[in-house]
């Protein structure tokens, strides 16, 4: 009896959030036979949590918008560490990807003349986010899911990939297990697309679900591909802080886009106290002007609450540390105040922000139309990930592609809200197209059965140690505390070094983890297997953060609070060194084409 079930496909997509679904649809449309492997049930991926909208320069609300403005906004937000080719393609192709969703049945909110409505968001110069109330991600994933199931994809639900298999210099397949029975599967493929999302579970306070354990990043790294920009982890400024059990759950930036304001315990709008120089010309002078901006006045500039996420998160931290925070260690986010300005404000809020209304009502006994919310930063997104080619999304390992959050390049040092949904559409589509082309051109590689058998043995080891081994949940929560305390929003060299020591010790404990029971739907086992990936990404984040001795975008070093010019010219690339240890190196940014440099200059 074979030790695993074998499957053969042209393209295997790992992950079925927006990027994975979009890649699978495209590869399939290109004629490839496609397997879509996902850790949860189809349609449950973290894309459903995206609330605010999808950024695309449709210019439906403000005709001054176009791809050049979107490109320049994205580069400015990313502090110019972005891959400019990706930022260009993203800005140019996002409108078409959004319109295509409408052709597949998505129903966005409308403008008075019946086109797709767009809303304001932090760092975007014009109203740019196509949205459906505050449940845009659900609309997007459901549209892709309902379209995809008729495209002949073979979907493997509740399957987790534990290793990629190589054939000499290229990728040839993937080994994984299904949760239901604990059986192993081997997918042979011409090309693989990683679309596994983020690493939020490496932190204690996060908006991410259990799935986001850095699988794609770690699989790629283990297979010999390179990671990039891993020091840039986005802490979303507004997560719930109370009650304790919901800490970290996201509160959409859309609240601020609709006129919500941040106040400290003294009632002061502290965001006016610190406006970065690069954004001063675009930021409102007064509360009055800020309000007008949120209500669509094109002559007004945005309120400081809509500055980039890294900045807002740090301002909130500052207020809390200075003792000016809310009772549960956050600050106040107030949308209820708009009743001073709008008739029927309560109804307006419920219509514009239905799931926020629902979430606070049910989980915190707060009526957001009447009372302020308490919010604080939460680990939300990683800008870094698998290093890919800007046009094709292929990693440094031939045949291995990556798209969406698990890939690096588009967002640089900081991502703008709304740019992740457009990212996964644009680059999901590109990854799917190029993966299908690669598979067509190169065929399937040979899979090394010994490597697969070794991978399987390794995955089963925790059972040999049984209940006497370390508890996987305990190791995971120790890692989460380490990263939260030592590699969080504000970083220092000594703490980063300490984190590396602790990660090393946790790696030893992870090697002793034991699992009782059997292989059928055993979450203790699943948690044990995720630990390796979490440790790889935790180490990569920490090492890259250590090397970047400056503060830029989402990466803030208290011991080096300014920018260092030389570091503004490099990305940090992580790879496994010849000795097996993790190595981080600075590599020069990809060259910026003259015409793109001109666009950036014009839009300053």
């Amino acid at each position, binding site marked *: 009896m074979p030790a695993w079930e074998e499957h053969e496909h042209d393209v295997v997509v790992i992950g079925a959030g927006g990027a994975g679904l979009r890649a699978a649809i495209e590869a399939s449309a290109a004629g490839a036979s496609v397997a879509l492997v996902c850790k*949860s*049930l189809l*349609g*449950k*991926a*973290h894309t*459903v*949590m995206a609330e605010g909208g999808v950024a695309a320069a449709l210019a439906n609300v403000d005709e001054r918008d176009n791809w050049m403005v979107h490109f320049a906004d994205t580069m400015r937000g990313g502090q110019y560490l972005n891959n400019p080719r990706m930022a260009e393609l993203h800005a140019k192709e996002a409108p078409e990807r959004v*319109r295509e969703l*409408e*052709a*597949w*049945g998505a*129903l966005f*909110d*409308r403008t008075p*003349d*019946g*086109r*797709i409505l767009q809303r304001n968001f932090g760092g975007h110069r014009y109203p740019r986010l196509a949205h*459906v*109330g505050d*449940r845009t991600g*659900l*609309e997007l994933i*459901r549209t892709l899911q*309902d*379209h995809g*199931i*008729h495209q002949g994809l073979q979907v493997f*639900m509740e399957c987790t990939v534990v290793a990629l298999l190589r054939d000499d210099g290229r990728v040839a397949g993937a080994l994984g297990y299904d949760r239901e029975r604990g059986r192993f599967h081997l997918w042979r493929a011409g090309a693989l697309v990683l679309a596994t999302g983020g690493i939020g579970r490496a932190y204690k306070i996060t908006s991410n*679900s*259990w*799935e986001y354990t850095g699988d794609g990043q770690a699989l790629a790294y283990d297979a010999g591909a390179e990671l990039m920009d891993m020091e840039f982890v986005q802490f979303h400024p507004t997560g719930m802080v*109370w*009650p*304790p*059990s*919901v800490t970290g759950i996201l509160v959409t930036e859309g609240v601020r886009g609709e006129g919500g304001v941040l106040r400290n315990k003294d009632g002061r709008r502290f965001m006016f106290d610190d406006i970065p120089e690069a954004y001063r010309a675009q930021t409102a002078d007064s509360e009055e002007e800020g309000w007008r901006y949120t209500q669509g006045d094109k002559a007004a500039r945005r309120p400081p609450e809509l500055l980039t996420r890294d900045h807002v998160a740090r301002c909130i931290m500052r207020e809390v540390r200075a003792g000016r925070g809310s009772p549960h260690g956050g600050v106040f986010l107030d949308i209820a105040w708009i009743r001073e300005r709008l008739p029927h404000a309560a109804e307006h809020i419920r219509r514009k922000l239905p*799931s926020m209304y*629902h*979430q606070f009502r*049910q*989980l*915190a006994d707060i009526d957001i139309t009447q009372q302020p919310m308490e919010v604080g930063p939460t680990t939300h997104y990683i800008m870094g990930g698998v290093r890919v080619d800007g046009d094709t999304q292929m990693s440094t390992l031939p045949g291995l592609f990556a798209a969406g959050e698990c890939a690096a390049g588009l967002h640089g040092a900081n991502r703008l809200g709304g740019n992740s949904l457009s990212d996964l559409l644009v680059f999901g589509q590109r990854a799917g197209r190029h993966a299908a082309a690669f598979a067509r051109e190169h065929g399937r590689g040979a899979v090394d059965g010994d490597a697969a058998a070794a991978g399987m043995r390794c995955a089963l080891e925790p059972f040999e140690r049984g209940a006497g081994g370390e*508890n*996987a*949940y*305990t190791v995971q*929560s120790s890692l989460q505390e380490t990263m939260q305390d030592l590699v969080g929003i504000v970083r220092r060299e000594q703490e980063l070094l300490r984190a590396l020591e602790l990660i090393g010790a946790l790696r030893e404990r992870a090697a002793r983890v034991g699992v*009782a*029971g*059997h292989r*059928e*739907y*055993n*979450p*203790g*086992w699943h*948690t044990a297997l995720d630990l390796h990936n979490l440790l790889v990404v935790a180490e990569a984040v920490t090492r890259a953060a250590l090397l970047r001795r400056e503060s830029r975008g989402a990466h803030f070093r208290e011991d080096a609070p300014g920018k260092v010019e030389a570091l503004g010219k490099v990305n940090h690339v992580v790879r496994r060194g010849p000795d097996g240890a993790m190595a981080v190196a600075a590599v020069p940014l990809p060259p910026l084409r003259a015409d793109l440099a001109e666009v950036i200059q014009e839009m300053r």
Partner: protein
Amino acid sequence: MPQATFRIWRGDAAGGELRDYPTEVSEGMVVLDAVHRIQAAQAPDLSVRWNCKAGKCGSCSAEVNGQPRLMCMTRLSELPLERPVTVEPLRAFPPLRDLVTDVSWNFAVKQTIRRFRPRAPDAPDGTWRMAQSDVDRVQEFRKCIECFLCQDVCHVLRDHRKFDGFAGPRFLVHVAALEMHPLDTEDRTEDLRRAHGIGFCNITKCCTRVCPENIAITDNAIIPLKERVADRFYDPLVLILRWLRGPRGPQT
């Protein structure tokens, strides 16, 4: 810290039993937190599905004290903690392990529903124009998070096991979203009557009561669809006209 006991169903397709797990509870906790706490400290192999923990993904459906609920949105403060809180898997679907059930039937049903087919674009640039007021009612249906609580509670499925002839409330909502989509041109009325068995629904509204998204499943989705079926197949005037003109008569 106060304690509470959770009486959780442990077992698989071959059978199982309720087992008691006393655990500490704290302010603001939801049932899913308690299940996680038990998993981390007492029963590492306790199977449960969950993802977003914010009522948006519809993964953690279960029966809490006999009521179909999302565990992540059920606060302990709304339950009587002086007696054990029972947590059981959805009973309409085959058990896989502990709180996890085999919901694959739902994915198979969806596959049988005719896909969205839009009319030709309204504008030369390939886009459409739709009024917000026309979009509103379909947006209500598209709020569905596919938690399948409505399927679990529907007596046609739960008690009468009509899995072969009835799509269940979730997929009637899905058909309603397609049929009432301002751009859609496909006709699913015949399918509703035959393959999806809309006639089995006798409007007891159990599905509406358990919907965590507060979709008016019966009133806004199922009844209007039933009217379409009735207009097409059972309207006496239409029947006479059809008889006069032959089998492919005018359709309303």
